[in-house]
């Protein structure tokens, strides 16, 4: 039954993807100002050659089909602005950087969030509850592009403990990933606290206590699995948020990741790079949400999506 639910989700995503690709394709073709218009006047025969090279002289239907053909081979085409570079090369170069940043941030978010939330739930209405929960309000309300520069100002410029930017040594990883993970740590700590508080009053927890288990074991072995469900279902949106938050973080810390390329090509109106990268982002977010659905089915024995 869980399987049928998941297949249903997949069945919805495929038409969405087709629509997205179609929209993307026609936006490239009909965008005001063709790819070569912004340059100085190109001689007509060179323009003809360029058009031939990029297949812009073919009928539209043929171009559209060619686009699908290229996509199915994961070929996102050439960059219109950087000569001799393809979108694939750009992605291959920068995606690993972004993926690393995103993963470290997610680890931070889970580690800090679940620990803080767990402590708060164990000792509600104490210091362990109030302090992290006040921090979490900050994390939820303050946007990444405020937290990031403030972190840099305090820890890098004034204190001088960590580098201002770049992406070479392990020290370079700390501030960007904390910046990106902070908001999600805040959210996850609230969800963890809420989830644990609710589940602690349930019968099976009383049974576990009655068996004589220590409080710690009750929490870790019995309460966490159910109490973390809200966290798991939040992971999908969190991953989507981290992916778009990375746009800002990479900008602030000067990290050569996919987000920075995306923004650069958006500012330069490098259509093919923008579209290729967007398609990649869309697919990543779809996949993230789908993975979360799968994990959810496994974690909660009661949820068997009818």
């Amino acid at each position: 039954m869980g399987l049928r639910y998941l297949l249903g989700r997949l069945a919805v995503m495929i038409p969405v993807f087709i629509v997205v690709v179609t929209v993307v394709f026609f936006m490239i073709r009909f965008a005001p100002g063709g790819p070569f218009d912004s340059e100085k006047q190109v001689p007509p025969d060179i323009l003809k050659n360029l058009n031939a090279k990029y297949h812009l002289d073919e009928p539209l239907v043929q171009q559209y089909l060619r686009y699908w053909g290229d996509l199915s081979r994961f070929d996102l085409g050439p960059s219109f602005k950087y000569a001799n570079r393809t979108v694939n090369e750009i992605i291959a170069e920068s995606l690993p950087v972004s993926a690393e940043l995103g993963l470290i941030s997610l680890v931070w978010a889970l580690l800090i969030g679940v620990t803080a939330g767990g402590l708060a739930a164990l000792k509600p209405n104490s210091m362990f509850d109030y302090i992290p929960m006040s921090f979490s309000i900050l994390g939820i309300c303050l946007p990444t592009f405020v937290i990031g520069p403030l972190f840099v100002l305090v820890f890098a410029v004034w204190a001088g403990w960590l580098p201002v930017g770049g992406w070479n040594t392990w020290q370079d990883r700390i501030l960007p990933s904390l910046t990106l993970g902070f908001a999600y740590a805040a959210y996850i700590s609230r969800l963890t606290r809420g989830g644990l508080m609710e589940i602690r009053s349930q019968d099976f927890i009383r049974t576990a206590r009655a068996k004589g288990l220590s409080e710690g074991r009750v929490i870790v072995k019995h309460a966490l699995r159910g109490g973390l469900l809200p966290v798991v279902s939040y992971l999908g949106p969190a991953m989507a948020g981290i992916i778009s938050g990375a746009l800002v973080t990479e900008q602030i810390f000067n990290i050569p990741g996919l987000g920075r390329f995306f923004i650069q090509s958006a500012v330069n109106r490098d259509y093919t790079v923008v579209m290729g990268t967007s398609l990649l982002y869309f697919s990543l977010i779809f996949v993230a949400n789908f993975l979360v659905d799968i994990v959810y089915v496994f974690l909660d024995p009661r949820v068997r999506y009818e």
Partner: protein
Amino acid sequence: MSSEVMTINTTTIAPPIQEDDSAGVSLWKDAYHRLLKNKLATFGGLFILFEVFICIITPWIAPYGFDTQNLELTLAKPSAAHWLGTDTLGRDLFTRLLYGGRISMMVGFLASMVSVIVGVVYGAISGFIGGKLDNFMMRVVDVLFALPFVFLVIILMVFFGRNIFLLFVALGFTQWLTMARIVRGQVISLKEKEFVEAARSLGISNWGIIYRHLIPNTLGPVIVYLTLTVPSVILDEAFLSFLGLGVQAPMASWGTLISNGVEVMEIAPWALLFPAITLSVTLFSLNFLGDGLRDALDPKGAKD
């Protein structure tokens, strides 16, 4: 039976002096009192009112022009002449902050309006007509929920130029989905009520019922969600402007000012701090106000 006794008891025991929390007080008045009791929300509301007022009178109180440059006085420290210092082109930061606030606020309110109109109309139609159409319309909403809207807005800005009115509409269109769901839920539960039946028996058309009877009754949740939409739109606009894809120079929103501040923060930290603080306090205030309104209008859902 016991409940009957109880009602008799309360009505007899508590005679006319019913001021606060009972029958004679309208929902709105009651909510207003509850809101005033919530200090954070009251503070947030007052601060926002103050800010809106300042934004309206900005052209008369701003000490300089928002693009007046003074190249002999770049990145100046805060002083009597320039309260918050100046930027790399010698423009007064206090003035820029005021004008930036106008743009941020305008984007916030106008885009939220777009989202309310689209969301309410969509949700009301879907909920009122019901059946297959409702099913289809809500499926569309589910699908759209899965799309990362930030990227769509960026794509729109890339292809159609960085036009501020496009920005309003695009940001508004990213926020209507939840609104549509809320309104639909409300309409579904309302449309079976007697007053709708009565309206129908008087021969009022479907549109009339939706417009005159259903939509006004969904206002509570809509207003609550609206106050939470405004900060998220302001945030989205600042996000785009920070990335250089929003408001264009020489105009500036708070996002632009923060992004300019980041470039110079090692020499002129105030250029970063003041816009960052302003934006943060505004977002805090709007969020507190929204939470307070939710608690005030829907006392049952107050606890999380």
